[in-house]
């Protein structure tokens, strides 16, 4: 299972892969390294910190609610639950995704969309049964084809401009030499 982490404004921050609830690997995106890298640093050694609440009796016998931090080890089967709680406490979104949906998510990552849009498609993707994943593949393939086509057109226009630039520069560099030989 994979758990994708997003910022409050839906930027992709990274992914955590788990097996039977325990963490296998944490990979942060560039944004993620900047925003939550420091928060995740001690996970493997100290565990993931989550808030807990308990009631204690005061000296006069009245109950008092006290909150404290508890660290859940990454190898614990309770890690996934702690990860989700940690994400909420840090105003992040953690979305789990089965391995069968992973390829479609990776395709979505390659399509130029705003973070909120990619997140919206991911929400729908997660709710799609495995039997319809080939439909998603087709849609995303079409979108990627559009992107490649548009990128090729842009590249062609840039190539023409670069040729124009090269022509002008060649004129500057070659012309004086040509004059010298003449």
């Amino acid at each position, binding site marked *: 299972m994979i758990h994708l982490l997003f910022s409050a404004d839906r930027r992709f921050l990274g992914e955590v892969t788990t097996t039977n609830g325990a963490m296998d690997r944490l990979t942060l995106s560039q944004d993620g390294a900047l925003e939550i890298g420091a928060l995740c640093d001690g996970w493997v050694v100290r565990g993931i910190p989550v*808030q807990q609440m308990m009631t204690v009796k005061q000296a006069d016998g009245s109950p008092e609610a006290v909150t404290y931090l508890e660290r859940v080890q990454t190898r614990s089967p309770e890690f996934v639950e702690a990860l989700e709680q940690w994400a909420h406490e840090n105003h992040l979104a953690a979305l789990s995704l089965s391995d069968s949906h992973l390829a479609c998510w990776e395709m979505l990552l390659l399509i*130029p969309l705003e973070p909120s849009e990619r997140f919206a498609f991911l929400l729908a993707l997660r*709710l799609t049964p495995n039997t319809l994943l080939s439909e998603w593949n087709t*849609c995303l393939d079409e979108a990627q084809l559009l992107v490649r086509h*548009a990128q090729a057109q842009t590249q062609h226009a840039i190539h023409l*401009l670069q040729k124009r630039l090269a022509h002008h520069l060649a004129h500057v560099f070659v012309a004086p030499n040509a004059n010298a030989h003449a």
Partner: protein
Amino acid sequence: MERSLENRPLRPRTSDVPPSEDKIRTSIEQEILHVRQEGDELIKPLVRGSLVQAMERGPLGEALKRQGIRFEIGEDGLVQIHLPKKYREPKAVSLPHDIDEHGTDLHHHRTLRAL
């Protein structure tokens, strides 16, 4: 006699390039940048349109419709998803954010160890 590189310029220095050539170079470079940015910006609406349409047709469109999920392009030009309540994200946990990184409960001014 060997000539130093100082005395044998292999290419004209910037100051040797006539200002008009500099201007041409700058303007073409700016044009390239503009084309690149424009290309990037043009791709997004195409992709949005393609994906939103794809989400409405075929078995996938049917399945999403059955689940009450639909997409539309909002006034801001961005894709928006409409999800039934049952699929919406749970609200953030409501525990108070009054614990520092050392586990000290700032509200009650004591730590778990103190308990």
